[in-house]
């Protein structure tokens, strides 16, 4: 119905608008429509002749609105010189000229140099359309092939008169259900040819409908957010969040893994099994995950010119199914960031790195380091732009973010764009310094806390008690020292006895005893004030009996030792036998060791307090 209507409309138009712009004449048009993937690429080669008198500097292109709403990219270029000259792009802009039919959208190609009278020029126009292949039937089961319908005009729609034209439609191969044969269409292999047609007036239109098999997965990223984060520490991190859908014929009647795995001829030929992302060379730290974790089905290989990441979604994606995932990778900074005249600029690709993916809504965010200034962007096509601030690792003022948004993006948009900004290298040190000073402050605070006296009241009972307790402890320490010195004196005496048993030198032994005696007396004198203090101090009440006991035991030990010493020396003087000496000394010895044990225990006990 729609087709019939459009057809009638354009026939009407064609008769109505014959005299529009006749300065220019298109002498020859070759159109090639590439339908092998789900992106429609139309390459028209126009040979334009100036038949008027004045110099013409723009050429108008007309595209029916129905197609124009799906237009993703329109590029015009001509080749310098004959044959293999370098292609020179011409600027194309949408225009709304007066008095033209509303059913057409117009685009004007501006020529660098005007086309003079009688001269001709060959211009190539590449127009790319998305969402132009309609699946028909709209629902297929897993084993069915995917059939699509494509509509266009057999004639080149142009505001100018077209002298000669032809159209080739390239199909992906396989079955061709039907195609419009009316104006001399014929199918050769997987190519349908229309034309040649001669001398057609402006706005000629003859609808054609092609219905053919196209088993490509119609991969459409409904939303893709690319975040490019520049770190001056040496890398660029790119994170891409995909929201992917298969926009081909919808799957009906469920999915059978059995058919999919064992019978590949009937198991989902149009399903999306894998995607290949071509990443720049030296990409590293690559990951592929989604909301619920890592996806393990991916392969990576690369050489010095490219890195290739082959990813499989968690499940094969049939028509109408969706999925979402994230891939991320890091790139070396020096490959993409350059310095010119004190300015830095980032030169990086715009679109998604995957083959044959249509992106409905692409948002590219470039996150520049904290402290970047005077940010500007140059993109080779029109995008929506705005600025944001992002807070990341220890930021204080935040990082400037340039966001670019573009709808209907095709792989041809995957070109380089530049972000210029100014950045002071010293800003790099800001965050490490902040960390260092943070830790420094922490340690200083710890030290201050350890040394500060944080008691609320200096005159409170518990505070005073604590001070007194410290004093008591110091005193007890002193007492212990004295006792230890006593004990060492005891040891000296013992060794002197051993010497005696070896050498029999009674005199030196006696001398030692005298010295030790003196020393011990002195020590007990030293002990007195300490003991006095402990006795008087209320805090020491707990420890006092122990200390007292300790001192008493030590005294007793001293006495016993002296007695033993005297006894031994006596025996030696009287030349008793070894056995006799032992007998005499034995009681002392036993007492002594018991006492020593007790003294040690007491010392330990006091130590613990």
């Amino acid at each position, binding site marked *: 119905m729609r087709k019939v209507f459009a057809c009638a409309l354009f026939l009407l138009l064609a008769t109505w608008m014959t005299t529009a712009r006749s300065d220019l004449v298109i002498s020859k048009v070759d159109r090639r429509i590439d339908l092998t993937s789900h992106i429609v690429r139309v390459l028209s080669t126009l040979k334009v002749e100036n038949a008027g008198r004045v110099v013409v500097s723009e050429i108008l292109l007309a595209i029916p609105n129905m197609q124009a709403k799906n237009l993703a990219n329109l590029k015009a270029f001509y080749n310098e010189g004959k044959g293999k000259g370098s292609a020179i792009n011409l600027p194309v802009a949408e225009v709304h000229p007066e008095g033209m039919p509303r059913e057409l959208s117009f685009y004007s190609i501006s020529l660098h140099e005007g086309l003079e009278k009688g001269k001709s020029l060959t211009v190539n126009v590449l127009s790319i359309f998305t969402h132009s292949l309609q699946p028909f039937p709209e629902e297929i089961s897993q084993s069915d092939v995917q059939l699509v319908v494509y509509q266009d005009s057999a004639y080149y729609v142009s505001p100018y008169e077209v002298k000669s034209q032809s159209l080739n439609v390239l199909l992906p191969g396989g079955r061709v259900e039907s195609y419009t044969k009316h104006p001399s269409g014929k199918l050769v292999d997987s190519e349908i040819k229309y034309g040649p047609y001669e001398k057609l007036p402006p706005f000629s239109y003859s609808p054609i409908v092609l219905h053919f098999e196209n088993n490509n997965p119609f991969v459409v990223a409904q939303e893709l957010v690319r975040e490019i984060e520049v770190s001056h520490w040496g890398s660029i991190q790119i994170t891409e969040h995909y929201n992917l859908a298969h926009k081909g014929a919808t799957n009906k009647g469920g999915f059978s893994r059995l058919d999919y795995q064992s019978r590949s001829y009937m198991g989902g030929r149009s399903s999306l099994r894998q995607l290949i992302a071509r990443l720049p060379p030296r990409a590293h730290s690559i990951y592929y995950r989604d909301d619920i*974790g890592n996806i393990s089905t991916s392969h990576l290989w690369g050489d010095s010119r490219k890195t290739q990441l082959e990813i499989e979604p968690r499940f094969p994606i049939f028509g109408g199914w969706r999925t979402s995932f994230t891939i991320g990778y890091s790139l070396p900074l020096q490959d993409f960031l350059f310095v010119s005249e004190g300015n830095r600029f980032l030169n990086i690709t715009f679109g998604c790195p995957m083959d044959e993916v249509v992106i409905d809504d692409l948002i590219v965010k470039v996150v520049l380091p904290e402290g970047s200034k005077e940010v500007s962007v140059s993109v080779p096509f029109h995008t929506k732009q705005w600025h944001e601030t992002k807070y990341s690792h220890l930021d204080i003022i935040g990082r400037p973010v340039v966001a670019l948004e573009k709808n209907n993006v095709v792989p041809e948009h995957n070109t380089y764009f530049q972000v210029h900004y100014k950045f002071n290298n010293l800003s790099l040190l800001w965050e490490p310094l902040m960390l260092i000073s943070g830790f420094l402050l922490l340690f200083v605070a710890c030290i201050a806390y350890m040394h500060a006296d944080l008691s609320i009241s200096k005159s409170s009972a518990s505070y005073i008690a604590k001070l007194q307790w410290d004093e008591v402890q110091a005193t007890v320490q002193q007492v212990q020292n004295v006792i230890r010195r006593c004990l060492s004196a005891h040891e000296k005496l013992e060794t002197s006895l051993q010497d005696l048993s070896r050498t029999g030198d009674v005199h030196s032994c006696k001398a030692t005893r005298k010295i030790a005696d003196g020393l011990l007396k002195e020590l007990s004198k030293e002990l007195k004030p300490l003991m006095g203090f402990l006795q008087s101090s209320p805090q020491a009440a707990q420890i006092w009996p122990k200390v007292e006991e300790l001192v008493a035991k030590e005294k007793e030990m001293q006495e016993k030792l002296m007695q033993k010493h005297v006894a031994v020396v006596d025996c030696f003087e009287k030349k008793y036998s070894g056995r006799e000496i032992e007998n005499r000394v034995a009681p002392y010895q036993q007492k002594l060791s018991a006492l020593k044990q007790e003294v040690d225990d007491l010392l330990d006990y006091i130590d613990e307090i």
Partner: protein
Amino acid sequence: MVAPVEPKPGGTLRNAFGGVLGFFILLLIGVLAFSIRLFSVIKYESVIHEFDPYFNYRVTQFLTKNGIYEFWNWFDDRTWYPLGRVIGGTVYPGLTLTAGTMWWILNSLNIPLSVETVCVFTAPVFSAFAAWATYFLTKEVKGIGSGLTAATLLALVPSYISRSVAGSYDNEAVAIFALIFTFFLYIKTLNTGSLFYATLNALSYFYMVCSWGGYTFIINLIPMHALLCIVTGRYSSRLYIAYAPLVVLGTLLAALVPVVGFNAVMTSEHFASFLVFIIIHVVAFVYFIKGILSPKMFKVAITLVLTVGIAVCIAVIAILVALVASSPTKGWSGRSLSLLDPTYASKYIPIIASVSEHQPPTWPSYFMDINILAFLVPAGIIACFLPLSDASSFVVLYLVTSVYFSGVMVRLMLVLAPAACILSGIALSEAFDVLTRSVKLQLVKLLEGPLSNAGDTKDENSTAQNDVLKADKQVATNNKTEDVKERPSKKNRKKDKENTEKAPVKSHNEKRLLALPLEASAIAIILLVVLGSLYVIHCVWAAAEAYSAPSIVLTSRSHDGLHVFDDFREAYAWLRHNTEADDKVASWWDYGYQTTAMANRTVIVDNNTWNNTHIATVGTAMSSPEKPAWEIFNSLDVKYVLVVFGGLVGYPSDDINKFLWMVRIGGGVFPHIKEPDYLRDGQYRIDAQATPTMLNCLMYKLSYYRFVETDGKGFDRVRRTEIGKKHFKLSHFEEVFTTHHWMVRIYKLKPPKNRMKGKTKKPKPTSKPLSGARRDGSTKKNPWQ
């Protein structure tokens, strides 16, 4: 295994050095505890594990997105359809609040970590904290050396690792820390008698209540210990300060947690603490009276009070018993009852019994989970009795009770682990202490001996020394026997006794008793080191191999390398992206949490298992033939049915293996499902010998639909048999998705037919409340009757 840093006269520098050394050792223990739990991240990925963690993760996400107030009021309509669940009031919020706070702090410092990352690493971080808490607890009991040893053991103990690897985001992860820390603060209060620590103790107890249902262990163990102290005549004001504030403050705080609420005073689990609370006050009062009365008057008072008191007590107890007995479960919850009576669950609550972690453990699992600690623990107990202090008696009591509980449920092995670590730490440290000291002594003797004997032919010196030694030993034994006699004597003598008993162990720089021969102690040290390294090897192995699998990703090693089975997430991702946002998915309750968290779809039942009837309904549907099952599911508004099937790749914990529990639980509520119908001669089988009921039930059909076409025979690799019914068609369900290895299969309910042949039947609206379904049930033969 570090020798205690001993105070020495004039050794302040040495003390400081020891302090710094100890600090660094603690730091390293923390790092060790954290890093040994990262195997799961390294071997697999940073992902949430298993089932319950997914729920906690989802709750945390909600908390971080919507804030705390929304969280308390959260009514979750994604689960238990059509009942829903009040999450804020039925969840222990400790873990989620902890992780949420951590995430909030990190984000306010502009450190952009995702909620998932924070959740994954919460457990390792808290196990480092738990190791430190163990250090403090053991230090209070037996000193720094034991503390460090115990902390090291705890950092590595497999039982705890199994619950706290990175990604195991479960309540236990923080609860074990809270448990140990609460015990530490209790002991600290008991040792110092400081109200400050008592308050901290109550707060820590509050945190524990927030975190885990296992808090009842604390509130029963501490009263038991207090009672033990009172009975053994160790009552002191310190005990009072440690106990009374905990009960009062702790109960008040616990009642603030919505999930506990009035249970803190109403259920039997808490009664022990109140009883002991009364007892301790009576005892305190008696001590007070004793202080102000003369002994004679005191006796009179005692007889007076005893007669009145006993009468009152009997009356109160009678009332209590009557109250408790009037409630059906005697005031105990099912899980607690199955703790007291291990056979309770299998008899009455199949849903508790069906969980593998609620089964009693086997002996090998003890060796697996605590390894050599099982042998060191007795030595630790002995060390705790030399001398027995309040703190060490607590540790022994803790161990004994937790051994009992671990014997009832595998899950509670986790509570045993810290106790085992503490006691083994004490044992190891004491053993090293004795051995290294004797080595030191013997070495000194060896070096000194020849010098002093140089000029002597008689070797008198050494004999003299031996005599000294002998005498010393005699004295020591004398002392000990005296002490033994004195044991029940007065309290103030206890200190002396402890002192004399401790002295032989503690003393140093003296040539005295307990000096073992050099060779023996050297060999013993080597053996202990070997034992310790065996433990470390076992723990690392357990952490790396046994306990790190996230269970949602499976791997298998074959000759051609590592093979990854990521089927669960494949299915959940499919559900998430390719079904309507409010579709209902029915599956066995095991997969409920994962489905809500990963697929973001509404489920009928989940791992919370709070409504047995609802689970029984799903169980009944799974065990019914296709048509009644379709009716049940349709009445529940279910659109998709998810089953887990391991028969193709040999994944043993699939739904067919769990099927008998579905039958049992379903049959428990709907008697027309009878377990014997599914068993052939008492045997569960799915081969040609299986019963027709089995071969026609929904679970069988959904699992084996078109399975025979894979290999032509239908050989089930889990059951190792060919399936019984091979070729069949589904009439009420259609397959919509099957994962790569067939581990998850998703079926869609076919829409109801417009016209029914023969019978007149009104077409069902898709959304129908439960009550409507029940009304319908009266006319049809379905389980709602």
